[in-house]
């Protein structure tokens, strides 16, 4: 079991080096630091919470196994997102894109019931629109819009040329502008 991390001033680079040497406690701190980002990434891709948590776990396990091969030429976060994206894409393809949106927990704190319902419908429309994109362009859009990766980082993460990143992003945005036109007009 991973040790609960103590208050620490260690840099991420130190933690990665220690984890590469087999320090499970250091890896535990990396898991704690990046778990929310990884779960959210998979959640945006799949629209399903339980699936996201399972795939996030799988991604961290894969990361541990591949850790000796990691070279800090790119940020650890991007390397992790690359593993998580690939794990999610593999799993989604295995499931033939049968995404189940039931049971998704949406957090809308501090609002009245009507407003919550309205917001919830709005969130649902946005999520459905994103999920209806092809997996290839959806991945690029999510890494850009939600994970704030640069084009070069997305290209490295998905192992695709920079031009492909731009064309997929353009396709995703054009499609979303059409499917979300009603919501965009209200804004």
């Amino acid at each position, binding site marked *: *079991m*991973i040790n*609960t991390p103590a208050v620490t001033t260690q840099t991420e680079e130190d933690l990665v080096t220690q*984890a*590469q040497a*087999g320090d*499970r406690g250091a*890896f*535990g701190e990396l*898991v*704690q630091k990046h*778990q*929310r980002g990884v*779960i*959210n990434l998979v*959640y*945006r891709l799949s629209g399903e*919470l*339980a699936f*996201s*948590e399972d795939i*996030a*776990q799988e991604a*961290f*396990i894969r990361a*541990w*196994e*591949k*850790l*000796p*091969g990691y070279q800090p030429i790119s940020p650890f976060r991007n390397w992790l997102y*690359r*593993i998580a994206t690939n794990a999610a894409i593999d799993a989604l393809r295995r499931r033939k894109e049968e995404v189940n949106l039931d049971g998704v*927990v*949406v*957090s*809308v704190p501090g609002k009245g019931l009507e407003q919550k319902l309205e917001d919830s419908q*709005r*969130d649902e429309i*946005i*999520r459905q629109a*994103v999920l209806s994109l092809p997996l290839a362009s959806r991945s690029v*859009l999510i890494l*850009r*819009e*939600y994970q704030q990766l*640069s*084009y070069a980082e997305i290209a490295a993460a998905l192992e695709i040329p920079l031009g492909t990143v*731009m064309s997929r*992003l*353009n396709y995703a*945005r054009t499609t*979303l*502008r059409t499917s*979300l036109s009603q*919501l*965009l007009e209200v*804004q």
Partner: protein
Amino acid sequence: MNSHVTEWLAAYHDGELSGRRLAHVESHLKKCEVCQIALAQLASLSALLGEAPEAEMSFSADRFAAQVGLQLTRQPRHKSEPVSRPGWVWTALPVSLLVGIAFLQVVRWMAGGLSLAQMFGFGEAAVSRLTNAPVRPTGILAQISSELIHFGVPFSPQMLIGLILPAILSVGYLVWLIVWGLNQGEFEATQM
């Protein structure tokens, strides 16, 4: 007018432009309402997407980390140890097979040499003693021999040395090569 910067607007919006291209897009935007509207649409879409809530984790961060920890292997896999397997066995296996194949080849050459010597009449007495010595298969060889003869296949020790053993050793070496190749592939896949 086809001087719009539409194709660069997304990259501008994402902060991906620099240098002269950035300056060109910025100066164009100051005077082009069409491109300003297109840029505003991109910004609206990003803002709308940003409204979608994050996933609410069904359990705590500590529990998640603990669950991951339970599934970790003891050590991350190192480059020098792609697959755990006794090293000396892994190396000795192909070497033994190759030595076996070489040994059989030498035996065949020697047998050929003796036949040649007999043909040209050199050391006839010794050669005929060696080549005419009755060689009867025993044990499992006798069993194989009788089975093969039963199926109409003549069996002789020469056949064993010349055909069956080299075939077995070659197949063994081929299997080792395939397993080695698969392991190499697996190891490279871990170095992503």
